[in-house]
């Protein structure tokens, strides 16, 4: 269904607004944070979905879309909306099926000169250590009872069991363990679907990258140094979520919300994927508890993967992870809803902020930023395509205009089928190796879908959020090795 393109009112060079008169039922305007160039690349469904979000009961101020936005289900990917926790709603469509899909960044004391000669061996070892691909069973098996503890305690449980360092906790968003997670709100089916997947990468756009910190890519040199980066350093970044467990939690509650939304709560929405329930209702609260279990699973999943990465590096370089100074820089989520206090028209209110393919970007001094980084603003990890590189940013005070939210990645411009017609996985793999990026993938065929050309230019996305003021550049990180599902 092709909808008519709305008139986009220019607020600044990087903010564009859709007036509520565009669609019946819009309670607030839509606001897109984007350069003019990226705006031109957005598919028209984004406008339709963003303005649908603007009709949700209790939405406050704006329905936002980030520069990497593209159409999704319910909310667009890159969609952000806040609701009053007393009388607003919660919607699984504002979070996504892959709850706590997120990024983790780990540094080392190795340089490009140490790693380049061993890159094939390193990537092959990490590929062997960290299960990836469709399905994909964990190397470490947990019982269902242990899994229930994992989803209630997240990274904390993993570290207590020896799968990580104590300091990893304080370098993870929300300490890797969110409140309000209650396994009683989770179906047996979700547990059965996910309990054997802790520590697995998954597939699609999920990946693990060995990256090079080039001197010319250190933008904020002082902050980069403070956060442990130096020229020619090797770091590791990876992207994955809560796997089948989170997918099932979302599926279960979408079905439940579709049953009760109209019959019990007399609410109508414009798209089934926008199904919602009052946040304070039983169903809303149960979903919040189950979703937070999936948030914890996402953190735990990345914690176990970090454990595998440290083991892999130690194996290849003959030194312990401690000797290699493999400190985590940060772990951050880009698919979840969270309870946060924000200033709304001069008053502090508790809001349930939905971020779907959008990253928290808290500024200096905010309670959400761990003490280690509180003076600097939250570290933000933005993953690019496997060819182009990724970014480390910092949160800003100005980001309060978007409920402290920024972009999450590149955002697709080319469909998967189109990418498969345009690129061949095996050829792409060879071309990238010539460019100095060694890739090991479970599905070479699937690799074509992730070609750099299938995505928006990451630098343009970063330029947009930096110039809009909702986060600031610290450093760009470019890949030299990649493990793909």
């Amino acid at each position, binding site marked *: 269904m092709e909808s008519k393109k709305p008139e986009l009112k220019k607020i600044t060079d990087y903010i564009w607004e859709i007036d509520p008169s565009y669609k019946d039922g819009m309670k607030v305007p839509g606001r897109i944070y984007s350069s003019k160039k990226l705006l031109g690349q957005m598919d028209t469904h984004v406008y339709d979905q963003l303005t649908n979000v603007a009709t949700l009961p209790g939405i406050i101020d704006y329905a936002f879309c980030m520069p990497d936005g593209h159409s999704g*289900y319910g909310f667009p990917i890159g969609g952000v909306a806040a609701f009053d926790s007393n009388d607003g709603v919660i919607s699984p469509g504002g979070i996504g099926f892959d709850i706590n899909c997120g990024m983790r960044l780990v540094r080392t004391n190795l340089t490009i000169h140490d790693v380049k000669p061993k890159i094939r061996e390193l990537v092959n070892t990490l590929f062997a250590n960290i299960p990836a691909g*469709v399905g994909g069973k964990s190397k470490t098996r947990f019982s269902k009872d242990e899994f229930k503890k994992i989803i209630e305690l997240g990274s904390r449980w993993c570290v207590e069991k020896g799968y990580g360092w104590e300091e990893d906790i304080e370098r993870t968003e929300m300490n890797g363990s969110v409140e309000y997670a209650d396994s009683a709100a989770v179906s047996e089916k979700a547990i059965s679907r996910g309990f054997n997947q802790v520590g697995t990468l998954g*597939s699609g756009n999920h990946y693990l990258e060995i990256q090079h910190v080039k001197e010319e890519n250190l933008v904020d040199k002082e902050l980069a140094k403070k956060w442990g980066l130096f020229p020619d350093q090797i770091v590791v970044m990876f992207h994955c979520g809560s796997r089948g467990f989170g997918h099932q939690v979302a599926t279960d509650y979408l079905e439940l919300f579709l049953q009760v939304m109209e019959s019990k709560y007399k609410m109508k929405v414009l798209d089934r994927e926008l199904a919602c329930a009052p946040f304070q209702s039983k169903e809303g609260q149960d979903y919040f508890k189950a979703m937070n279990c999936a948030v914890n699973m996402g953190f735990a999943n990345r914690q176990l993967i970090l454990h595998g990465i440290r083991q892999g590096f130690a194996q290849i370089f003959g030194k312990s992870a401690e000797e290699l100074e493999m400190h985590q820089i940060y772990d951050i989520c880009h698919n979840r809803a969270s309870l946060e206090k924000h200033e709304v028209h001069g008053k502090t209110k508790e809001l349930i902020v939905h971020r779907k393919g959008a990253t928290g970007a808290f500024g200096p001094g905010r309670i959400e930023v761990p003490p280690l980084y509180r003076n600097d603003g939250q570290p933000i990890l933005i993953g690019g395509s496997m060819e182009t590189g990724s970014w480390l940013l910092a949160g800003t005070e100005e980001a309060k205009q978007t409920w402290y939210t920024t972009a999450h990645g590149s955002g697709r411009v080319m469909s998967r089928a189109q990418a498969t017609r345009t690129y061949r996985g095996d050829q792409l793999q060879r071309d990238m190796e010539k460019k100095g990026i060694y890739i090991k993938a479970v599905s070479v065929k699937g690799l074509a879908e992730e070609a750099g050309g299938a995505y928006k230019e990451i630098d343009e996305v970063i330029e947009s959020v930096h110039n809009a003021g909702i986060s600031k550049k610290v450093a760009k990180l470019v890949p030299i090795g990649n493990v793909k599902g």
Partner: protein
Amino acid sequence: MPYKFIDGVVVADITFEASGDTLEELFESSANAVTNAMIDKLERIEAKEERKITLEAETEEKLLHKFLDEILFYKDADNIVFSKYKIKIKEKKAAHGCDERSNFILECIAKGEEIDNAKHTVLTDVKAVSWHMFKFEKGKQWKVQVVLDV
């Protein structure tokens, strides 16, 4: 069993259309489409293990949606993908207050095997069956359009 992947519906995901002369055929072709989004060459999936699937829903479209969710459930829970199905769907009428309401019941035996990266050409993981642009229609044939979240 006819199904085809179509382009241009949702930029980041996979869309398929499936059809069947009977509801059972539609269910089988849709399940094959979901599996084929994840695994190339379904003929390489041998019928080594089976799972019994029993489901109930108020409408045929909800039943199909639930059935496709089951395919994803077994892919993650047991690492199993299927290639052969024996499906029976029955309509059951039951009194509901003053009204009579229909329910649809599916009984299925699905046969397949564990995913083996050496034997099967894996493509991409499907996370969920969405309701986004889900179109279900009964004309001369049963037809459906489904968007898969990948």
